[in-house]
C-alpha cells in the first residue's frame, strides 16, 4: 500500500484508471453505432468488439514480459534504439493528444446541447480542459484515486435507470438472434471496438503497477467491467426503444436515462448529464496525462506541469478546429480507428523490434 514514488499505483487503481479511460463518450452513442450494422444483435457486436482490446492488452503484457522496463519510453528505447524509440513514444503521445482533443470536443458538444448553449465554444473548451489539466499535471497516484472515487460515485447513477428499463422493456426487441451475415458482425465488431478506445494506455500504466504480476489481471477486470456497463446500456436501449428508434437518437443512452421518473425534479436526464460530466472528464484527463507524461520523460522535464502547460494550447487548437457536430463525429470515428491500430500495432511492432535487437531484454526476471 505504500509507494516509493508518486508514480506507483496499486493494481486496484489501475482497474479504475483503465475503466475511466475506456468508459468515455462511447457510452452515449454506442447503442446507435452497434445497432446500425446488426440491429437487435448489437449486444453480440459489443461482445465481439471487446476482443480487440483483449488482444491489445495481451500483446502489451507480452511486451513487458519480454522486456523489463520501468516506463513506456524506456521500453521503446530499449527495443528500438534511442531515436526510433523516441519516435514511437511521440507517436503514442500525439495519438493521446488527438484523442483528448476529440473527446473534449464531443463532450463540449453534449454540454452545449443540454447545458450551456450560449457560452462561446472556446470558453467552454478552455474551462473544461483547465480542470483536466489540473488532474493531468499531478501524478499517477492522484489519477488513480480520482478515478476510483468517481467510479464509486457514478456507478449507482448508471443503475438508476434499471426500474425504467424493466417497466418499459419489450423482450421482442432483441429477437431474433443471429439473423445477420458474418461479415456484418465483423464490421459491427470493428465499430464497437472503437468504443473501448482507451485500452491502449495500458502500455503506459503497466510498468507503474506496484505488483506487476497483478497488472494484467487488473486490466482484464477493467475490460470486463467496462464491457458489462456497455452491455447494460446497449441491451437496455434496444429493449426499450427497439432497433429503429435507437438509430434516430444521437445519444440514445441519455434518452434511456431520461425515461426514469423522479418526483421533484422536472427533467431527470439533467442529473445524468451532470454525472456524465464526471464520466467523460476522465478519459480526457487520462489521455492528457499520458501525453504530458510521455513528453515530460522524453524531454527530461523537471516537472510534468511544463509539458501539461505546453500541450494545453495544442489540444484546444485541435478541439476547436471542427466546424460542427458532423465533422466532430467523422473525426472521432477516425480516432477510434487509430486507437485500434495503435493498440494492436504498437505493441506488436515493439515486440518484433525486441526480437531483432538481441537478447538484451530477453533475460526475464520477476521484478517485484
Amino acid at each position, binding site marked *: *500500500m*505504500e509507494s516509493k514514488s508518486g508514480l506507483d499505483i*496499486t493494481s*486496484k*487503481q489501475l482497474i479504475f484508471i483503465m475503466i475511466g479511460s475506456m468508459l468515455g463518450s462511447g457510452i452515449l452513442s454506442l447503442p446507435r453505432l452497434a445497432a446500425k450494422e446488426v440491429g437487435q444483435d448489437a449486444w453480440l457486436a459489443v461482445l465481439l468488439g471487446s476482443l480487440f482490446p483483449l488482444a491489445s492488452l495481451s500483446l502489451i503484457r507480452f511486451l513487458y514480459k519480454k522486456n523489463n522496463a520501468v516506463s513506456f519510453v524506456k521500453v521503446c528505447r530499449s527495443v528500438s534504439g534511442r531515436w526510433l524509440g523516441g519516435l514511437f513514444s511521440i507517436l503514442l503521445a500525439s495519438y493521446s493528444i488527438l484523442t483528448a482533443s476529440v473527446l473534449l470536443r464531443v463532450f463540449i458538444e453534449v*454540454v452545449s446541447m443540454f*447545458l*450551456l448553449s450560449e*457560452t462561446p465554444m472556446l470558453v*467552454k473548451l478552455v*474551462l*473544461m480542459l483547465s*480542470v483536466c489539466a*489540473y*488532474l493531468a499535471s*499531478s501524478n499517477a497516484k*492522484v489519477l*488513480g*484515486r*480520482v478515478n*476510483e*472515487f*468517481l467510479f*464509486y460515485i457514478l456507478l449507482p447513477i448508471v443503475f438508476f435507470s434499471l426500474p425504467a428499463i424493466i417497466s418499459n422493456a419489450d423482450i421482442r426487441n432483441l429477437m431474433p438472434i443471429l439473423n445477420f451475415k458474418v461479415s456484418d458482425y465483423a464490421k459491427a465488431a470493428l465499430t464497437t471496438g472503437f468504443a473501448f478506445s482507451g485500452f491502449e494506455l495500458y502500455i503506459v500504466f503497466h510498468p507503474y503497477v506496484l505488483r506487476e504480476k497483478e497488472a494484467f489481471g487488473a486490466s482484464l477486470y477493467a475490460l470486463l467491467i467496462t464491457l458489462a456497463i456497455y452491455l447494460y446500456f446497449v441491451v437496455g436501449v434496444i429493449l426499450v426503444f427497439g432497433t429503429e428508434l435507437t438509430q434516430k437518437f444521437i445519444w440514445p443512452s441519455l434518452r434511456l436515462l431520461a425515461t426514469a421518473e423522479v418526483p*421533484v*425534479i*422536472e*427533467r431527470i436526464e*439533467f442529473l445524468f448529464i*451532470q454525472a456524465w*460530466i*464526471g464520466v467523460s*472528464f476522465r478519459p480526457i484527463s487520462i489521455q492528457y496525462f499520458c501525453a504530458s507524461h510521455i513528453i515530460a520523460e522524453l524531454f527530461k522535464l523537471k516537472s510534468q506541469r511544463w509539458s501539461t502547460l505546453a500541450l494545453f494550447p495544442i489540444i484546444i487548437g485541435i478541439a476547436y478546429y471542427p466546424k460542427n457536430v458532423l465533422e466532430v463525429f467523422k473525426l472521432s470515428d477516425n480516432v477510434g480507428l487509430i486507437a485500434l491500430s495503435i493498440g494492436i500495432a504498437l505493441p506488436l511492432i515493439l515486440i518484433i523490434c525486441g526480437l531483432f535487437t538481441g537478447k538484451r531484454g530477453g533475460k526475464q526476471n520477476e521484478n517485484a
Partner: protein
Amino acid sequence: MVKRLISIKRKVKPQKYKTIKQIATTARLRPDNSGKAAAPALDAEEWFRRELAGNGDIVFRDLMIGGSEDLEAVLIYTYGSIDKNTLNVNIIKPLMNFKDKAGKDSGSSSFVKRLMDSCLTVGTIKALKDKNLAKDEMFQGRVILLLNNIDQIIILEVAGVKARQVTEPENERTLRGSKEGFIEDLWNNVAVIRKTLPDPTLKVEVSKVGRRTKTDLAVLYVGGLADAKLVKEVKSRIKKIDIDGVLANGYIEAFIEDNPYSPFPQTQGTEKPDKVVAALLEGRIAVVLDRTPYVLLVPAQLIQFFQAPEDYYERTYIGTYIRILRAIAFLVTTSAAPAYIALTSFHPELVPLELLLNIAELRKKVPFPPVIEALIMEFVIESLREAGLRLPTAVATTLGVVGGIILGDAAVRSNLVSPAMIIVITITIICNFIIPNYSMSLVIRLLRLFLILAAASFGAFGITLGWLIIIIHLCSLESFGVPYFAPIAPTRFKDLKDLYIRVPIWAMKERPVSIPGYNKKRVVNAREQKDGK
C-alpha cells in the same frame, strides 16, 4: 576558500589584543585554579547582576546558610513566576536553619550534595556550572541558588504561575463525554492525557521550539501502535522549525503540514483529551504545545473533521444517523446556494412549474440577479458571525437580534433580497454549524464562495467542474504520507464502517487501515466469545 581563510584570520586577530581584565577572568574560571583563593560565588553574583541589569522583575535575595557568616548565598528568581509560599517554607526557611553536620572543611561538591539531599525540600532540583544555562532556566520560572565559595549553581523548581481552571471546551461541547478541556499549561495537558491513558508505552518526547520564546513542545504517541517512520518524520519536521517566536499551535501547524497552499487543514486540532486519546489509540501522533489549549493530531484525514466523540458514545443507530445528517449538511452548506443560483439563472426549466412560479413571484421585485443577492446575504451573515465572535455574549445576542431578525426582515420588505434567498442562505449557515471542527467549517465557507461564483458564471456545469476541482485537490493531498481523502479515495473498505455508518464499537475490531501502525487488533469480541464455544 580564500575568503573563508581571510575571515578566519580576521576572527583570530582581535583575540591577540585582549584586555588584561579579560585574560584575568578566563584564567580565574579555569577548573585547576584553586577555588578558595578567587571567591567565585561573589563573582558569579556579580556576573548575574550585570547580565540581568534592567530587569525589574528579578529579585536577588541574600541570605546566610545556617546563620553562619562565611556561608553566604543568593537566591535569584523572577518575581511573578514563582510560588512565594513554597519559596519561603521549603527553601529559605530550611536554608537558614541548616545545620551542617559534616565539618566546613569538607569539599564543596559534597556540601552542595548535602544541601540538595537533606535541606532543600523541593521536588525538582539540579546543580550545574554553566551560568548562561542557569540564566535561561531562571527565565523559565526556576530559582537559582548561588553559594559563596562554590562554583556550582543550584536550580530549584518553584513554579507558581496561576494556571487557568480546567473548563469545558468552548468549541467542542459534548453531552455524554468528558467535559474536561485542555488549558494553557503543557504539563497539565500531558498529565490529563496520561490520566486517561496510563499506558507505559505512551511516549512523551519533549523539546523546545522558538529561538526566543523557547516554548515547550511535547510529541505524544503510543510506542506499540504508532508507525516508527511516522514518528520520526514528525519529530524531524518539528526539529527543522527555526523561528524566533512560537505563540500558538498554528505556527507549528504551518511548519509541519505537507501542502502549505491548500485551504484544507492538514492537522486536526482538538480541545478534548478523550479525542486525543482516541487518536493515540488509532496510532496517530499528538503534538502538544505549551501556552496553547489546543492539541494537534497528525496525520489528519478529511473524515476526521466530520466526526465527533458523541458519535461513538451514543447508540450505533444514533451515531450513524448523525453521520449521515452531517454528510447531507455538508452537501447542503456547500451546494445549496450555488444550486439555487444555477437553477434560477441558468436552468429554470428544471424546477417544477408551481415552485418556479412561486420563486418568480417572490423574486419579481428584486432588482439584483440571484448571485448578487447571495453575495449580499453571505457578506451580511459572515460579518454578523465574525462580529459576534469577539463581542461579549450580551452584546453578541443583541447583534444577533438586530442583525438577523430586524435586518433580514427589512431587507425582504424593501425588496433587496428575496425571501427564497434568505431561506437558502439561512439553511446554508445552519448546516455550516453542524460541522464539528471549527477549522473545517471555516474552509467550507471558502468552498461555498468558490462554488457560488462557479455557478453564477457557468450554471450547473460550473458547479460540477468546481466539485471536480475540489475532488482532484482532495485526492492529491497527503498528510505525512497518509492519503487525505482516504478511506473514500483510495477506498479502504475496512475503514468504511466508521464513515457514514458507525458500526458498534465491538465490531470495530481493527484499527483504521488508512493510518500506518502496528498491532492492528483493537477489540477482541467478547460478544462472539460468549455465545461461541
